[in-house]
């Protein structure tokens, strides 16, 4: 295979691995089965990735089987050293022991070959039985120098005992291996767990070497062949070599346990192992792994499809929530006029003369003081407005909570989970409190509204300069008339009333205020009429339209703000999470991975890698 093609192939594999790494943490949220337990995952991450990067490929030979089937015994025979302790109690071997050829490997290279294990130097044969929660791997070198330079031997924990961590470690080693030595016995050649384990190995095209242990040799020779036939049938695998080993504790302790061959091709286990055709085996196992990875039904493409489907479901759930549940409309109570008038007067200020600002300001103050007992103050009005608005707001939020409650009962699981996230007792209380806090911090007149008013009025004055002049003119006229009125009232016939009793100063002030109020109202009415007429003369936009528009905009902006608040505090996090998961389907890595998988499948059909 050409160098460039090989590089491209490695790139594709890396793309696949990157995509899986990105998607793996989201699997639980997406409700997709985690890929870590699937065979293709092991084939990709334990077998292909660690080994494709190597300059000089190696063959990994692993010894596997059920508890107390004599795996460690066989392993010690192969390594020609007591590296793995053989115990009479089951599930004792908990961590794999790895034997590498002398002076060929650095520890970090072995670490690269077995990425999920923590490589430690081997010290005694009890290392493998150590109780530890981490996945350890004990490394030692072949002390006799017989081991072939490209052969790596590794022992495994059991696959059917009562300790699930052992199975997991055994499966990781199986995924990484190219050749498996199957330790079978008359009791454990057809067990569920054993058969399942070796079936996966066979599906991935690993080379299998079967050893029947604890055999009564030579009496049971025919029986072994029968068991072999059953094993072939149940696992669908074709073992390369088959041996039988007798029950001989002394020979095992002396490292000279005989392996009798059961097939003409096999001779002696150790020799056959060294004579293995590396290239052929390597190609077979890589092709097997690749096939397992690219399998449409069980492999990576299926995983990517599942992820895509789930992401779409999350997108649908998010749409339902946004469309049906989220608050869209809030009925606001009537806003006190002064809130809206205030920005308008503010904008108008630069266009008025100082004189009329003063005069009108003075009279307004007096009027306020006098009518104070009869009118609610501005802050009271604002408070009332806020209270009524909060009621209405709260009602809209409650309706949303009702809808969520309904969805929690009847929606699909995704919606149910999303609704439950908001509706859990402690969560709900917290959400209400934070909503109230955020609401209280919201100013009545926001900066947005002020800017909006300024903008609208600017535009209006630009389009209708005469209307503006009319308004300022009438204000000025009023400013002149009012003081005149005061003076005249003080000077005409009621003067003797005024002069007569000094005690009635209060009544005098009251009388003034009364007449002034009437007069001012009259002036204001006149001014309004004037502006109306003037505005109609101006043509396009009447002032009343303008003012009505400003009121409308206030309601709209305010409602938008409130809705945004609900979204931030209550539904935001939920919707954001749904968004995140829904967007997985369109993530570029996913697309790249699908493309890479397609290319690899095409290449696999035409020619093999390596």
């Amino acid at each position, binding site marked *: 295979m050409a160098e460039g093609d090989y590089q491209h192939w490695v790139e594709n594999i890396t793309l696949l691995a990157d995509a899986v790494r990105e998607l793996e943490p989201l699997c639980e949220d997406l409700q997709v089965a985690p890929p870590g337990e699937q065979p293709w995952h092991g084939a990709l991450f334990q077998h292909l990735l660690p080994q494709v990067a190597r300059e000089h490929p190696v063959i990994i030979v692993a010894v596997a089987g059920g508890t107390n089937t004599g795996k460690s015994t066989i392993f010690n025979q192969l390594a020609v050293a007591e590296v793995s302790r053989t115990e009479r109690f089951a599930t004792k071997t908990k961590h794999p022991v790895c034997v590498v050829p002398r002076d060929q490997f650095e520890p970090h290279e072995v670490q690269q070959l077995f990425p999920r294990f923590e490589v430690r130097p081997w010290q005694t044969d009890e290392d493998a039985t150590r109780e530890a929660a981490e996945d350890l791997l004990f490394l030692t070198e072949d002390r006799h120098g017989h081991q072939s330079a490209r052969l790596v031997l590794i022992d495994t924990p059991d696959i059917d*005992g009562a300790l699930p961590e052992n199975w997991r470690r055994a499966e990781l080693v199986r995924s990484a291996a190219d050749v498996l030595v199957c330790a079978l016995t008359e009791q454990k050649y057809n067990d569920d767990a054993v058969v399942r384990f070796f079936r996966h190995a066979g599906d991935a095209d690993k080379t299998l070497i079967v050893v029947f242990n604890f055999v009564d040799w030579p009496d049971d020779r025919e029986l072994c062949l029968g068991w072999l036939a059953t094993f072939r049938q149940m696992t669908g695998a074709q073992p390369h070599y088959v041996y039988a080993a007798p029950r001989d504790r002394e020979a095992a302790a002396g490292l000279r346990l005989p392996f009798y061959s059961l097939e003409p091709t096999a001779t002696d286990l150790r020799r056959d192992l060294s004579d293995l055709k590396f290239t052929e085996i390597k190609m077979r196992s890589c092709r097997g792994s690749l096939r397992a990875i690219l399998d449409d039904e069980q492999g990576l493409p299926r995983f990517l499809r599942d992820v895509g489907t789930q992401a779409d479901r999350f997108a649908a759930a998010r749409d339902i929530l946004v469309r049906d549940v989220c608050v869209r409309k809030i009925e606001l109570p009537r806003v006190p006029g002064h809130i809206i008038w205030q920005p308008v007067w503010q904008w108008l200020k630069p266009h008025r003369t100082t004189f009329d600002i003063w005069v009108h300001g003075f009279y307004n103050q007096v009027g306020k003081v006098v009518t104070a007992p009869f009118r609610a103050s501005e802050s009271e009005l604002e408070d009332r407005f806020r209270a009524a608005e909060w009621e209405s707001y709260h009602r809209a939020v409650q309706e949303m909570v009702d809808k969520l409650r309904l969805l929690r009962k009847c929606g699909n699981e995704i919606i149910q989970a999303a609704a439950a996230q908001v509706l859990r007792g402690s969560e709900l209380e917290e959400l209400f409190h934070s909503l109230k806090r955020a609401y209280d911090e919201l100013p009545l007149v926001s900066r947005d509204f002020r800017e909006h008013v300024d903008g609208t009025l600017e535009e209006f004055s630009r389009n209708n300069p005469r209307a503006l002049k009319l308004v300022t003119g009438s204000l000025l006229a009023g400013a002149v008339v009012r003081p005149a009125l005061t003076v005249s009232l003080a000077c005409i016939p009621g003067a003797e009333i005024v002069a007569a009793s000094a005690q009635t100063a209060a009544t005098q002030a009251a009388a003034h205020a009364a007449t002034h109020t009437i007069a001012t109202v009259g002036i204001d009415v006149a001014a309004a009429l004037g502006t109306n007429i003037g505005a109609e003369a101006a043509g396009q936009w009447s002032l009343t339209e303008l003012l009505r528009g400003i009121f409308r905009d206030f309601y709209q902006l305010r409602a938008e703000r409130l809705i945004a608040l609900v979204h931030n505090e209550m539904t935001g996090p939920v919707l954001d999470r749904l968004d995140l998961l829904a967007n997985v389907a369109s993530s570029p890595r996913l697309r790249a991975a699908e493309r890479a998988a397609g290319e690899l499948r095409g290449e696999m059909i035409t020619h093999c890698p390596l």
Partner: protein
Amino acid sequence: MNDSPTQPGLTARGPAEPLEGEWDQHRQLADFDEILRRLRQWVDAAPRWPAFARSAALLERVEPQLKQVRLRLDSVLVVGFVGGTGTGKSTLINALAGEQVCQAGKVQRPTTLRPEVLCNETVDLSVLGLGDFPVEVHRRKLALLENMILVDCPDPDTQPTAGEATANRNRDVLRAVLPHCDVIVVVGSQQKYKTEAVISELLRHAPGRKLVFVQSQATRDEDIRSDWSSFLAARGFQVREIYLLDAQEALEARLNGRPVEPAFAGLAHLLQVQLANRARHRIKRSNAFHLCQWTFGQLHALLDEAQQPLGRLEREVSSQQDQLREKIRRGLHDTLQSNRYTWRTKLLEQLLQKWSGGPFAGFLRLVNALGSWTRWALVARSRSATELAVTSSLAALSAVRDKWNEARAARVLSNSQHLGITVADVAQARSVLLAYAEDAGLDELVDIRSGSGRERFCEQTLADLAGQVQLRVDDALDVAARQRVAWRAGPACHWLFELLFLVVPVGVIVKLGMNFFYENLVQAKPLLGTDYLVHSLIWILVAAFLLRGALLWWLAAGLRGKVMQVADEVVRGGILEPLADDVTQAATRVHGHCDALWRVERDFQRLADELRQVEELQVSELEPGWK
């Protein structure tokens, strides 16, 4: 192993038991049946709560077995043999029987494909309850089988090779057969004593069965009993003894008439003599009780866990009520602070009731009725038309305002806005409580209204609350006013104020009298004119009003604190119950039903304690508290 005469009947063929023993046995069984009946009743009467549904499912599973006790009490002991493939179950049975009955060997695995039953010629197998399940039956006339049936079960860790009917997968077969066994003999070998498949099946079927553990390939394997024992103990088994023997050798010995090894003899003796002959009834009864105890243990775990959210709910109810209470209290404080008219009115009312007679009291009544006098005085003082117009309009205005204030004060507490909480607060509290209730699984028992139903409920609750509070505050203020008046405005006070009131008028009258009778008639000074009268009248009025002010001050001093106390007391009472009534009721129902179950359990425990007799047997079992 001596049986005392009061022990219940132990052998089927032994001499007739003393009558009391039989009566005891029947009574115990009757009591046991009663417990079962009560359990069933309890399940049927359970409110709709998820944990109760799960309890019902559990009971469904175990009830058939529990009911079989009486039926099968007299029947033979059923001993099942369970273990991984190739451990030697069939060989062991053959050894016990003394001949090759079941197929055994290592030619193919699994060897045992269907359950194989070894029994007497006369035994009726319908008692086994297997119905038309395919089994291989071997009938032999053996001493071993007098009171015992041996069942060789399929292995839980293998499937039959492809070609056999896959409908009868081994594990399903095992699960159909094991429930009918009274004793399970667990057979292991050095390779297969820690297999997950076997231990999980064992855990599933162990409750209600006695267990015997055997390691059966002693010649070839090493002794692994200590590890097996600790492994089993870690999984919750109480292991008495593990027999170490070699089934193959025992079989050969028996076939050739040789004596068997002691371990095998011990096992045979245990099964045949101790269990089947002597303790058959005891074992079956003990099994039933064991299963019942295990069931209660499961129900405990289930219900305890499910009751935790209920505890949280109850805490939350009181927390929400406290929050609302606090808000109401603050609101009441503010309202009462800013409405002195309420208490002043009440004080005056009470006072006037108490001080029925006397000129001062009469004056107070007049003032009450007419409102503020000064304004009318002002009206009387005005000289010109304008002044009259202005002063009278002002007077009218302020009189109206007074009336309005009074009316407002009266309305104040009935208007729920001044209660300090709003519909929103009530709705929020309810929402949170309902969320907790749903978490606790009470959504079937509580009417969770939504939409306008919820609105109406919240408004109704608030209105009721406001009404209640108003009534209570009214009452409390009345009582406070009465107390205060009684304390501070007693007869002595009344007399004092009357006297003070009369000082000025009496002085004026004396002066007038003096003036008229003495100065005028005797000294011929001029009479004091109406001016003097009017002035003195004004002074009398001024003095009277001052006195009135002083009286009110005297009465009202420090009343504010009392009023705040009133508000606190009102709030502390049970006014917020309607908010969470339905939820707390539902929770109480659930708790009550759980307590009913524990009562049944206590009665059962009493019964079980009477039956602690099986310790003498060398058998193992699963600890009842274990899951």
